[in-house]
């Protein structure tokens, strides 16, 4: 993606709130969406069929653009092999990739990346950092042939949802670390299908806004994956301190 990586790290919700107007046609319901200003096009589309058709066309184009980013690189896979294809896909999306015994390869701010990895046809990919990328269910098919993948980070990916998690069972033999922190569309229903990943040692499921009961979900996931360390919500989150439980350094008003 051409946008700077720091911009993407802000998180999907703020990203949606910034890309308002003509570009955000169907957004998730956020508390401030009902109070947002309607754009001129939205106002006009209530009165004119042409503008309505134009907005529907723009919405379809947006969906098609997302699909094009996640197209299957099958022709490249025939020529270069599964590892190079997966790496190319991730680097084009804006993520980082690490081949076995080599350094991390990341695209710079302009989106350019070094192309020497095209030679590594037989070298397996062992770590993928796809944080903030627009990878979705179709795009996962480029990642799944990476059979020696040990570390996968899908932090703050706006299009990763429960359907994508159900495809991860193909990486069950090798995957040891998985991070899903901050993905807005992952819920506890998708986390239920992670039970196939029996080799998983670290799982990060913190800050998932679509999970209805984060504490209970963390307990159930820990029961489901007994050998895995699950990083979840902070236990004191949401607890308000009562007045008589103030920190100890305030002097007590009455001395015994």
């Amino acid at each position: 993606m051409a946008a700077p990586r720091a911009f993407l790290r802000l998180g999907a919700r703020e990203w949606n709130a910034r890309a308002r107007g003509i570009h955000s046609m169907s957004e998730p319901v956020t508390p401030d969406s009902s109070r947002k200003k309607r754009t001129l096009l939205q106002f006009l589309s209530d009165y004119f069929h042409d503008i309505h058709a134009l907005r529907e066309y723009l919405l379809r184009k947006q969906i098609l653009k997302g699909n094009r980013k996640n197209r299957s690189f099958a022709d490249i896979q025939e020529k270069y092999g599964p590892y190079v294809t997966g790496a190319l896909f991730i680097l084009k999306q804006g993520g980082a990739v690490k081949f076995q015994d080599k350094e991390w390869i990341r695209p710079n701010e302009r989106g350019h990346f070094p192309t020497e990895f095209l030679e590594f046809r037989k070298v397996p990919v062992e770590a993928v950092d796809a944080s903030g990328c627009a990878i979705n269910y179709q795009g996962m098919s480029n990642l799944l042939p990476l059979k020696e993948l040990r570390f996968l980070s899908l932090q703050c990916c706006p299009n990763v949802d429960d359907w994508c998690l159900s495809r991860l069972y193909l990486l069950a033999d090798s995957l040891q670390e998985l991070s899903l922190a901050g993905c807005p569309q992952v819920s506890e229903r998708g986390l239920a299908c992670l039970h196939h990943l029996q080799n998983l040692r670290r799982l990060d499921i913190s800050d998932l806004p679509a999970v209805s009961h984060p504490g209970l979900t963390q307990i159930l996931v820990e029961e489901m994956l007994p050998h895995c360390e699950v990083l979840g919500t902070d236990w004191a989150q949401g607890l308000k301190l009562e007045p008589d439980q103030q920190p100890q350094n305030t002097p007590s008003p009455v001395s015994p």
Partner: protein
Amino acid sequence: MSEFKKKIECILPGKQWEELYDTSHLPPKQSDVVIVGGGILGLSVAFWLKKLESRRGAIRVLVVEQDHTEHLAVVDAPLVDLRYNPSGCLLLASEKDAATLENNVKMQRQEGAKVCLISPEQLQNKFPWINTEGVALASYGMEDEGWFDAWSLLQGLRRKVQSMGVLLYQGEVTRFITSSGQMQTPSGEQVVLRRINEVHVKMDKSLEYQPVECAAVINAAGPWSGQVAELAGIGKGLPGTLQGTKLPVEPRKRYVHLWHCPQGPGLETPLVADISGVYFRREGLGSNYLGGYSPTEEEEPDPTNLEVDHDFFQNKVWPHLAQRVPSFKTLKVQRSWAGYYDYNTFDQNGVVGPHPLVVNMYFATGFSGHGLQHAPGIGRAVAEMVLDGQFNTIDMSPFLFTRFYLGEKLQAYNIL
């Protein structure tokens, strides 16, 4: 004063101009296609009709519902949350059904479904809470299999078809006005072919009705499809002839029970369908489970009401549950409810396509509990039949109405 305002609004351009009284609550006088039934199948047919039409706004579609509540994206609306649980379905088979299950799985894998066969030992390792006694083989869906919230799908589809220009009205179809003509078959027989010209839609809680002129009628009325078909004169004739073949779809009552079991199976529980026909799945995060059982022909409950028979669970469902999952011995039923299946008494498989004698009535019904999973495909098939006159994507000719007359059952090789 508001009556006067309404009258003035009627005269303004864009509104229905009715000299005598305000008719904005009635369905339109003309519509190209009238769909009887606004459930998942009816809305699916409406969706595909609007999607496959050759020009924007070419087909006027009206959906009449008696009781009313990427592809589905609508501008300015939040995305549909289907609450999809990708946990897969686990089908268990005994010795005598193992061969059928294996054949089914092979066929499903050929079509691209990601299912695999598991032996009882592997089953015990994967799901320690299960008792594998009597199980010879099991099939488990690894990917893209699970359950979802049908109500959200229905509401999302309603919203989408409304945004595509389909009119949704609440009312009851009480009469069809038909016209008939005589034709001769190549062998010289006289055949009476009928066309439906008008549909009378009666408004709820009143005697008012609106005659809607239409070109095609789609019968997607679910459990009441048989009654709607009789209104069109299907089945009025000598038994054994094509005129006398009724649409064999009738309502059947099925119960669903919700129970709580504190030490039950965990988060990874798939939808388990036991050998005995009992099925259950996890519901939410609080150790609640949902399940049911299809009764045999002799035990069929009375479909005239939706009352729940609680002894049915005690005697028929609980023993099998406790045998398969020992921790279910201590379960406690929270709620039960009943619903209707559009049960096809002939072969429990759906009817799709036109009627041979009433030429503009198309069926999309009779799937006996499997209508939801097939709805998008059937909707597309019926839309193609209406717009192009033939099935383009998938050939659904084994599902046509004529099989009832010819006596060819379309058997589904499932074990439930």
